[in-house]
């Protein structure tokens, strides 16, 4: 019984399946849109619970555990609460933009996921259906373009609230996102150079046939990871809403469902950024060490299995986001700017030159993409990452929380403390 089901799932489709007709394409796209939207929204709801559970676990607390089994219905309770709450409008707010801003934050967060392939193609009786909502040939550029629009929601929320803390949050956000967008774009140039195309499916195929870009392009991965955290406004880059300085930053004047929309937008941005990290650097839906999942003949079982692998990889990065949140403290504004412009940007530029040169040399030596190609890139990146962290950085950026204090600096700090009127008599 079970076995027959498995066999049914592995039913191999004709590899030469005809391309789908327009009507099938439209229906399939609508179904995919509904599925992706539903999964994203339910996922975001569960992520808010996961965030609270994980932060509780990291801080040795229980976390929400009153609504439903182990607090599993907490997101539903929060949702009902947010819908029932009163919507407040500040008198001095500029109403049209105040109302529009949450939607402007929410929509780009939903749009970006459209081009990310989440499983191998699905064979149907009507033809082969790609498991991506919109398989655009410009794939990756679309994501960069739409992601760059996400800042409008935050900036306009900050400005239209007519509140100085909100405005500061909005201003910080626009400066931060424009700065890190550049590093993000430049770090992916290396990925595009290796893949030779911007279509995300081609990038996945290249990684499946050589080596995951995490090993082949480690430095690009590190830059992209940092920039992705900055672009999603997550700690240690949550300066637009820094509680201790700006109370709640850009969404301070928002209540009820409008506030909730900012929240949903932030979490969907996290999901998209994680999916993008997985697609660009961890092989997307590729199952490691095998190639059978990347080749025709396609089957339903293959689609489900690759989809599962994709989900596991994305969930790891979502966990990583939360893990980092409770590990690193927030940057100071000048640290943020200097990291973006004086560290990430030059490193990304130099890295492009090195990778482009290496690819040229490999091409001249006649080494085709394959295991050896991946090995050479991997070793090169190991060396480059070592140079970057051990020699150029030497513990300055990697540990911003506990930057090294020189002996005489420490003495000066202690002297300051003993002179202070607050110092306890007799010192410590």
């Amino acid at each position: 019984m079970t076995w027959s089901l498995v066999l049914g799932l592995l039913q191999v489709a004709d590899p030469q399946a005809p391309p789908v007709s327009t009507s099938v394409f439209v229906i399939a796209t609508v179904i995919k849109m509904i599925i992706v939207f539903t999964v994203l929204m339910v996922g975001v709801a569960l992520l808010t619970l996961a965030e609270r559970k994980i932060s509780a676990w990291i801080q040795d607390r229980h976390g929400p555990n009153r609504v439903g089994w182990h607090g599993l219905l907490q997101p539903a309770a929060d949702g009902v609460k947010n819908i029932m709450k009163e919507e407040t409008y500040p008198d001095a707010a500029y109403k049209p933009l105040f109302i529009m801003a949450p939607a402007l934050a929410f929509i780009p967060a939903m749009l970006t996921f459209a081009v990310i392939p989440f499983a191998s193609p699905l064979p149907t009786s009507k033809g082969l259906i790609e498991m991506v909502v919109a398989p655009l040939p410009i794939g990756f550029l679309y994501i960069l373009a739409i992601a760059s629009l996400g800042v409008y929601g935050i900036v306009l929320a900050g400005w239209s609230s007519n509140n100085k803390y909100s405005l500061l949050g909005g201003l910080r956000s626009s400066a931060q996102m424009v700065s890190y967008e550049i590093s993000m774009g430049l770090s992916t140039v290396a990925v595009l150079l290796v893949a030779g195309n911007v279509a995300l499916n081609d990038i996945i195929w290249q990684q499946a046939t050589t080596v995951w870009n995490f090993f082949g392009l480690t430095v690009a991965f590190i830059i992209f990871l940092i920039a992705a955290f900055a672009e999603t406004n997550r700690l240690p880059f949550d300066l637009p809403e820094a509680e201790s300085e700006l109370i709640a930053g850009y969404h301070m004047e928002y209540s009820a469902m409008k506030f909730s929309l900012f929240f949903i937008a932030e979490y969907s941005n996290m999901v998209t950024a994680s999916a993008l990290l997985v697609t660009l650097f961890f092989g997307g839906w590729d199952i490691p060490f095998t190639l059978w999942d990347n080749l025709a003949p396609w089957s339903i079982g293959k689609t489900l299995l690759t989809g599962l692998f994709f989900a596991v990889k994305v969930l790891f990065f979502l966990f990583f986001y939360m893990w980092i949140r409770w590990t690193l403290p927030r940057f100071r504004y000048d640290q943020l700017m200097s990291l973006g412009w004086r560290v990430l940007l030059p490193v990304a530029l130099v890295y492009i030159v090195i990778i482009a040169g290496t690819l040229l040399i490999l091409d001249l030596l006649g080494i085709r993409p394959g295991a050896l190609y991946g090995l050479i890139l991997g070793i090169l990146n190991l060396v480059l990452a070592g140079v970057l962290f051990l020699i150029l950085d030497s513990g300055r950026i990697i540990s911003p929380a506990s930057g090294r204090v020189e002996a005489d600096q420490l003495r000066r700090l202690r002297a300051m403390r003993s002179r202070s009127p607050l110092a306890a008599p007799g010192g410590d």
Partner: protein
Amino acid sequence: MGLFYTFHFYLFGVIAIISAVAFVTRRSPVAAALWLVNTMFCLAALYVMMDAQFIGAIQVLVYAGAIMVVFLFVVMLLNLGHASDVTDIVGGKTKLAAGLVGLLLLAEVFVLWKDDGAPAPVPAQQELEPGVIDQVAAPLFREYLLAFEITSVLLLAAIVGAVVLAKRRVT
């Protein structure tokens, strides 16, 4: 599919013109900037409808996503956001000049329209190839390499100039 593209081309064209008019007539600089963003977005849609998807993506990325964000940043930083009575067109002579320039533009449009009875035809739908970027990259880095590099020098000069101006104010 041809009709689909043509219909949307004109639809976005109309929205672009409406947004552009709204951009010029709004009193609040923030509202004006947002209408300009909308115009940029419609232009990107026009490029996509003409099968230039790469240019469309770059249009959104550079103009709507970066340049206009910086515009908004400056408007907010200088607190110019709210509607004011300051306008560019003051006095009879300026109004006359503005009207004349407008007439000149209309005349130009009329001449162009008479010259070429029909609007420029939308290019035939090509088979979408995997490398849409090749079509832009190959001429850019082969035939027009010199122009491309000279542009980069121009940009460098602009950046140096901006840094010099900013530094002078500090010290």
